[in-house]
């Protein structure tokens, strides 16, 4: 999703300036986008069906609500992407530059709409709205508009989509830094690093404030028990500190070896230094997340990485502004090696959201243990789980090989033509 936006930016520059280098850049990243897309499509197709195969009881009871957004994703977003990606990848010679820009625009719209519908589905599971429930526990929709404008969705969408921009811009930066350090494709490399840093400085700082802050505050407001696990607050307190590092000790219900900033958490959430934050002790134990330490660690991994991103990109932007970035080898090394980190931060963020939601499948309404398919035996589930693990390992392996091959071949148009002509 992040790369789709960056490709659109390159195509826009190409159309505005008429310079071929922007088209070359777009073509190179579209090739990488294409490989991502294939893996995304083939791993995405099962998702919709796995609701039915493995979470039949959840599907039966909540399908009347979440089915709406999932069906809408297919009809409004998925088809948009697949119809226009073919044009973006294979149609450049067949259509005019404006039409090709339009294809990039539609692919961008498709991916970001797709994100919207999926997050609307998740937002309902985090913060159910616009439903009624009958005597059998079957949920039905009372307002489609309410489902699509779930208040939870606002911060979640901004936070998540901005995360995709961070990932995209870090990868673009990283490839550019790799070329600069190896003294290959220098002109293109500078374009990649420059574009990446400019996008990343905006995305990484806004990710902390206002997006991340907004998202965290809504968790404190609507899911206080998850928030307490995230921050490692075992006992309700006033003037809670912000813990940077520490180990939740579930036996003593305290935090071991905490390194923290006093009063910071209370101030961030309530805007008062002595504001009260609820601790885990305020809630019955069977409503605590199944693994408090895992929620705590995922959240802190995300926070620490996010802080690192903003710091590194502020420095890189400053170097770029002073015209020293392309000669600053230590910074280029850092940018090159940082590419995997936003993936880790994104996964950690989602682990916080989803493991933190446990034991609930639909927050406050339906427990995860109630949602599984009653008719599928655990032996069958293990068989398919092992199969999926094998499939995903193979695909991950192929993906890395193919991406490295494309990066190694480089963005030069001459070499590009050779790759396509095989």
């Amino acid at each position, binding site marked *: 999703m992040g790369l789709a936006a960056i490709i659109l930016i390159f195509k826009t520059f190409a159309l505005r300036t008429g310079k071929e280098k922007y088209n070359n850049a777009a073509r190179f990243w579209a090739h990488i986008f294409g490989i991502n897309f294939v893996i995304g499509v*083939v791993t995405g197709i099962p998702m919709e069906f796995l609701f039915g195969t493995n979470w039949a009881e959840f*599907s039966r009871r909540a399908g009347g609500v979440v089915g709406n957004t999932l069906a809408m994703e297919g009809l409004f977003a998925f088809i948009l992407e697949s119809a226009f990606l073919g044009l973006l990848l294979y149609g450049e010679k067949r259509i005019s530059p404006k039409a090709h820009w339009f294809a990039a625009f539609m692919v961008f719209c498709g991916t970001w709409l797709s994100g919207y519908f999926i997050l609307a589905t998740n937002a309902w599971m985090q913060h159910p709205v616009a439903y009624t429930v009958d005597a059998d526990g079957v949920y039905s*929709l009372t307002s489609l508009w309410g489902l699509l404008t779930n208040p939870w969705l606002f911060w979640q969408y901004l936070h998540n989509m901005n995360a995709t921009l961070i990932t995209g811009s870090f990868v673009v930066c990283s490839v550019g830094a790799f070329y600069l350090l190896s003294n290959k494709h220098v002109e293109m490399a500078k374009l990649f690093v420059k574009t990446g840093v400019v996008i990343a400085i905006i995305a990484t700082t806004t990710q902390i404030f206002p997006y991340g802050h907004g998202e965290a505050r809504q968790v404190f407001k609507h899911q206080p028990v998850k928030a307490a696990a995230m921050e490692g607050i075992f006992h309700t307190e006033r003037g809670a500190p912000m813990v940077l590092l520490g180990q939740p000790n579930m036996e003593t219900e305290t935090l071991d070896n905490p390194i923290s900033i006093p009063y910071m958490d209370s101030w961030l959430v309530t805007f008062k230094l002595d504001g009260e934050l609820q601790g885990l002790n305020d809630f019955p134990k069977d409503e605590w997340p199944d693994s408090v330490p895992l929620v705590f660690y995922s959240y802190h991994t995300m926070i620490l990485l996010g802080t690192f991103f903003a710091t590194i990109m502020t420095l890189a932007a400053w170097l770029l502004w002073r015209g020293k970035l392309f000669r600053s080898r230590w910074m280029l090394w850092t940018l090159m090696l940082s590419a995997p980190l936003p993936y880790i931060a994104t996964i950690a963020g989602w682990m916080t959201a989803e493991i933190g939601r446990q034991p609930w499948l639909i927050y406050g309404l339906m427990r995860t243990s109630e949602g599984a398919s009653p008719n599928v035996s655990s032996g069958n589930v293990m068989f398919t789980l092992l199969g999926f693990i094998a499939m995903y390992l193979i695909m991950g392996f192929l993906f890395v090989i193919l991406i490295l091959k494309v990066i190694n071949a480089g963005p030069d148009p001459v070499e590009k033509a050779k790759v396509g002509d095989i």
Partner: protein
Amino acid sequence: METLWFILVGVLLILFVVLDGFDFGVGIIYQYVAKTNNERRIVLNAIGPVWDGNEVWLIIAGGALFFAFPAAYASAFSGYYLALIMLLWLLMFRGLSMELRSQIDNPLWRSFWDAMLFIGSLLIALVLGAAIGNLVRGVPLNADGYFFLPLWTNFRTGGDVGILDWFTVTTGVFAILVFAVHGANYLAIKTEGDIQKRARHVSKLGMVLVTVFTFVLPIALYLARPEMLDNYKQFPIGFVFPAFAFVSLMASFIYRQSNADLKVFLASAALIVFLMLSATFTMYPNILISTTEPENSLTIYNAATSEYALGMGVKWFSVGFTLALFYTFHMYRSFRGKTHLPKGGHGY
């Protein structure tokens, strides 16, 4: 409103089978019609830009079923657990095979993905055919509206049935033949020279086999479960569907004589539409037919979501469906004409 959604889900499924059907078919006959690497690349370039769009109709159909009839979606997908998950694996590998083949220039790499494309397409066709056979035959639903079928038991159609029995295997093989013909007809339009010649040959041969099955199938249906034909007995008007299917088949024979490729393709598309309608007609108003107690059947009434959601759904669906049809049309239009090897740039 429930009937309308039954029709809409049916239309989506039929669209998926007609559109993705030809690229499954192309996958099945691929290694026979295209011998050299360049020929294979031409064939892949003929389906490459469209297969993903075709498959999206499956996602949309699944989404529509999920939304409109949650109970049926939950029951069917968990009940056919293993078959469905294996279908997903096949869809995954088949998608990869088309997209990854061109990425590395090595004969072993390419042979591997060629084989994957064939195996994937063949088994998907078999599973889809068997799935329709299963829907027509019915499943042992319990009072909670759930069932669980193993992949196979003793291949009999009564008692302790599996997903595959002799009847559903027959419908599966039939689906392979129909898709192969449909795919050959598509290639005959999109290619020239040797590939076209071989595709027309496959089409001709395949149609003879399809005709044989067209007569075998109703008999098999009657032997497997005579009550499957109840709807036809009650509403004889339903016979128009198999009749039109037969007319489509005859039309494709006639047009094949003069090699009017586009018309033959449209005829095989019509054949698929009417075959699907014939099968669907045996089910209505059931979505999942219970073989144990008839009152356990999931119908469009007891499996549907709220009236409000269905009504609201029709509104966004009509907008989305129109847009989606428009994109699909636009995509086919952009890649119209005979397929050639791409010069430079990207290609399969």
